[in-house]
């Protein structure tokens, strides 16, 4: 078909009225001419007219066919359908509003989850060459150690020899005291290779980044300041470049300020090159091939694949082991692992997000089923209208298109409203996701998300419309009574409700399993008694407590005074509280194994504690003794190991009396006790190797106070403050928390997920119950006559009730059965399905996917819900007055 000339094609569309009049005139002219001709042939004028009409055929139909020839006809009819649809909605405002609201909830929830998924999983990293960045790790599987980190010589080797990595950089974090501001400050410091920020693609907002010269041995120390630190602590001083601060007895010059981009891997206050860190640049670390533990990142060259780079680095590692066998395990070199940075940041949260996506998808399905049911209910009352249109000449396809258009309109309206809802909830979503991943900052209502949501809404709408067309096949029988029950529509609605019940069952089982694992998690033995313990942070002032003796004196006095307070059953100090996740393993040297040179250094999480620590926390001493007041600067250095560490390196025999070193053999600590394991990082993880040293031999500048209270720990806050100020009126004590609070923060992630799943499952149930109630009310109203007849013939209210309930129970049990089967299938298939390396049932803790208690509880819940749903309609049914029912035809 040749395409018509443009203006001509548009004319009927733009000037429709004119075209209509013209068509009208044309046909009228024809009829007149024909009538006149017939008159000339002898017919009377009236008869001539009739005959002319008859010969012409159905005038309306012909005109409609002429209209169909117009090229823009499709859009004309679409507009008509849209206007008609809007009118239909206005005629049933309540029902339409209910449908749109239901859809809005379902689609809104989906839009919210889309945003989270897009921001966290799909959007690119905010770093320059984000997709080329990899985390590089070394493992020692033969020594049973993972992620041992790199040592400075190894880092230098890789930097100079790698052909696949454009950059290879290191990072570690230290806490130093910054002098030169109004007050001395403890600052978190990122110690990095000079090209660290270049590798990440981060340009300084002010000044310059580090240059190779900054990292040279003996170079003048320089600092890069983070954006947050610059705005919060330095008052956004525009003259900050060139200012100096004193750290670690050296003068550091500020050379740049970083932009407000998310920092990796931690948010630090300042950054310095490796040569400025006194520990890192000391020869016994910088030249020591065995001094591992540094975190490293690499940037792949443009054409290089991950596997190529991994193979090359492995080759380098093997080469290093061959050249320096004394620094490597006897079994050979270390194993290199490369992981894309994006994956490293998201893999923990991916399974949870996928689970959420599936959940909201199912909720939407249930919502759509409700709307479909509403539509079907309406359809039976629209039967007359459709039959009429059919007889006036509307094609079946045209009617179907009308219904589909209405569905799409509904979907679009619900989608727009839902998108608005989701937009309003972005802050909520970000708050939720930030507990699970650092990528939460990237969450926003992206154009892609909006597009996806709109597509979803329109698809839902189209689907709903299609469902309507399945039922709207009216026979041209205008004689059908107005209230005739469309049997097929009702049975379809029954199946819909059955499906809804099944899906609700699946969601409820899922949520139930998550809740149970959460409860199991919280019940895990953490290794210490968290009840009634208060903690607080005490950071001593650098200038006032500038010697270890002064610090020790303060803390000693603090503990003495606190122990004398009424209501305090125990007091101690520690460098880190269990379960706050703050410790990282450090390498230690074991005397007995020091001769086995080249082995991978044992790693342990070190903790400085005072006497009374184990007693206050209720940690069992398994062998030997806890720290005493006698363990001080005059007596031999001692240490206490956790059971895991002792078992690890002294599987046969005892570790008591053995000696270990924290400074490569410069000083040695004797092991005097073994204590029970304590969960440090998270309740779900295995216990880590831990080692304790007494504060009296390692006076620290800051520590966390631990107080066991006789009654309520929060009541001790005032006495603690009073005591501290009594010793030093200017010493702040901050961050009061109970151990129980810290413990529940550690389960926050699983708690949030379980909460959301539970909410969605309940929402689904609510929608399903609403649908069930609607269906039942409809059925009852349809069968008023029948019920009235039954009652007139002797049926008792009990019998009627049984009849209605019987129906409900049939549907509910069907739904439960289907749902139960579906849940089993889902959980078992999830068990064998891993999402990007993370098994989904890793989310479940201590509960089987087929946990019978959960299934039983869900079944009960659904039965109760169904019973509640039919309470109203059953009442109505039993209260039907047979006389009035039979009278109303």
């Amino acid at each position: 078909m040749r395409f018509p000339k443009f203006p001509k094609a548009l004319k009927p569309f733009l000037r429709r009225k004119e075209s209509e009049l013209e068509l009208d005139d044309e046909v009228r002219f024809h009829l007149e001419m024909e009538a006149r001709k017939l008159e000339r042939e002898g017919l009377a004028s009236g008869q001539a007219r009739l005959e002319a009409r008859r010969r012409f055929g159905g005038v309306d139909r012909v005109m409609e066919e002429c209209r169909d020839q117009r090229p823009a006809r499709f859009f004309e009819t679409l507009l008509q359908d849209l206007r008609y649809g809007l009118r239909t909605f206005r005629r049933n405002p309540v029902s339409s509003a209910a449908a749109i609201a239901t859809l809005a909830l379902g689609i809104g929830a989906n839009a919210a989850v889309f945003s989270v998924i897009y921001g966290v999983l799909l959007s690119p990293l905010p770093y320059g060459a984000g997709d080329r960045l990899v985390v590089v790790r070394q493992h020692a599987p033969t020594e049973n150690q993972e992620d041992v980190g790199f040592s400075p010589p190894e880092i230098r080797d890789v930097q100079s020899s790698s052909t696949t990595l454009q950059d290879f950089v290191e990072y570690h974090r230290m806490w130093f005291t910054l002098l030169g501001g109004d007050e001395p400050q403890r600052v978190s410091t990122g110690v990095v290779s000079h090209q660290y920020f270049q590798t990440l693609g981060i340009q300084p907002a002010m000044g310059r980044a580090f240059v190779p010269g900054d990292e040279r041995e003996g170079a003048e120390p320089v600092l890069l300041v983070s954006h947050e630190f610059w705005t919060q602590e330095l008052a956004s001083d525009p003259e900050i470049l060139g200012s100096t601060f004193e750290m670690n007895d050296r003068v550091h010059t500020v050379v740049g300020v970083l932009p407000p981009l998310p920092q990796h891997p931690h948010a630090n206050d300042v950054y310095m090159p490796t040569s400025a860190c006194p520990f890192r640049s000391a020869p016994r670390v910088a030249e020591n091939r065995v001094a591992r533990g540094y975190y490293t990142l690499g940037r792949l060259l443009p054409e290089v694949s991950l596997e190529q780079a991994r193979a090359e680095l492995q080759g380098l590692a093997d080469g290093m082991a061959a050249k320096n066998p004394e620094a490597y395990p006897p079994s050979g070199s270390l194993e290199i692992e490369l992981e894309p940075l994006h994956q490293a940041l998201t893999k923990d949260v991916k399974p949870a997000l996928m689970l959420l996506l599936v959940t909201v998808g199912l909720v939407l399905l249930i919502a759509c089923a409700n709307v479909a049911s509403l539509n079907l209910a309406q359809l039976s009352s629209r039967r007359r209208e459709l039959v009429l249109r059919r007889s006036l000449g509307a094609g079946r396809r045209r009617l179907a298109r009308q219904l589909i258009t209405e569905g799409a309109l509904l979907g679009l309206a619900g989608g727009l409203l839902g998108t608005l809802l989701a937009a309003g909830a972005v802050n909520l979503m970000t708050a939720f996701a930030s507990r699970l991943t650092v990528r939460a900052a990237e969450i926003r209502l992206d154009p892609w998300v909006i597009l996806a949501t709109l597509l979803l809404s329109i698809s839902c709408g189209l689907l709903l419309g299609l469902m309507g067309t399945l039922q709207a096949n009216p026979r041209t029988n205008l004689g059908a009574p107005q209230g005739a029950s469309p049997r097929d529509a009702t049975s379809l609605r029954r199946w819909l409700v059955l499906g809804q019940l099944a899906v609700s069952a699946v969601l409820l089982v899922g949520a139930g399993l998550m809740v149970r694992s959460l409860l199991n998690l919280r019940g895990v033995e953490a290794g210490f008694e968290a009840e009634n313990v208060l903690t607080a942070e005490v950071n001593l002032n650098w200038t006032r407590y500038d010697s270890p003796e002064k610090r020790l004196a303060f803390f000693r006095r603090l503990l003495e005074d606190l122990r004398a307070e009424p209501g305090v059953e125990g007091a101690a100090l520690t460098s880190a509280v269990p379960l706050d996740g703050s410790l990282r393993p450090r390498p230690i040297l074991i005397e007995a194994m020091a001769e086995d040179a080249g082995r991978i250094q044992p790693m342990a999480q070190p903790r400085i504690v005072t006497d009374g620590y184990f007693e206050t926390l209720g940690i069992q001493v398994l062998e030997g003794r806890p720290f005493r007041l006698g363990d001080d600067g005059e007596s031999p250095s001692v240490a206490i190991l956790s059971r895991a560490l002792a078992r690890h390196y002294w599987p046969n025999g005892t570790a008591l009396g053995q000696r270990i070193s924290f400074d490569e053999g410069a000083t040695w600590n004797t092991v005097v006790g073994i204590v029970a394991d304590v969960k440090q990082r998270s309740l779900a993880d295995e216990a880590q190797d831990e080692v304790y040293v007494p504060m009296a031999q390692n006076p620290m500048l800051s520590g966390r106070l631990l107080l066991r209270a006789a009654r309520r720990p929060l009541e001790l806050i005032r006495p603690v403050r009073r005591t501290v100020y009594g010793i030093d009126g200017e010493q702040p004590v901050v961050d009061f928390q109970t151990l129980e609070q810290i413990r529940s923060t550690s389960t926050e992630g699983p708690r949030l997920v379980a909460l959301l799943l539970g909410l969605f499952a309940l929402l689904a149930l609510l929608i399903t119950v609403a649908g069930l109630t609607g269906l039942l009310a409809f059925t009852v109203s349809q069968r008023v006559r029948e019920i009235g007849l039954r009652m007139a013939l002797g049926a008792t209210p009990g019998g009627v009730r049984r009849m209605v309930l019987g129906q409900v129970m049939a549907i509910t049990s069907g739904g439960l059965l289907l749902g139960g089967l579906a849940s089993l299938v889902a959980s078992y298939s999830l068990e064998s399905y891993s999402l990007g390396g993370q098994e989904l049932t890793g989310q479940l803790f201590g509960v089987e996917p087929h946990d019978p208690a959960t299934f039983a509880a869900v079944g009960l819940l659904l039965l109760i819900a169904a019973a509640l749903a039919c309470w109203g309609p059953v009442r109505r049914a039993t209260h039907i007055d047979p006389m009035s029912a039979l009278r109303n035809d």
Partner: protein
Amino acid sequence: MGPRKTVPTKADLLQGTLDLLILKTLALESNHGWGISQRIQQISKEVLQVNQGSLYPALHRLENQGWIDAEWGQSENRRRAKFYKLTPEGRLQLEKETANWKRLTAAVGRVLAAV
């Protein structure tokens, strides 16, 4: 859409054939819809009775395809009527369709004449 049979005609016309007849009629002279149907009847000596119901959809279709042009003018009895005329593209189309028709009828004739 095929023609609707409301009044039985002496000969059933296929849509393509109707188009051909319309184009030819307009090639002879411009006309309005009614005139076209009368003309076809007249020239074919009453054999071809155009189904009036299918005439106007055909005219509109041909107009959209660009083979005929329409203009409002005055008819013989001073009434306003829509006059159609052939366009250059329509003329080309007419030649093509005529050739096709001749080929078709020749072929049918050969089959019928086969012994």
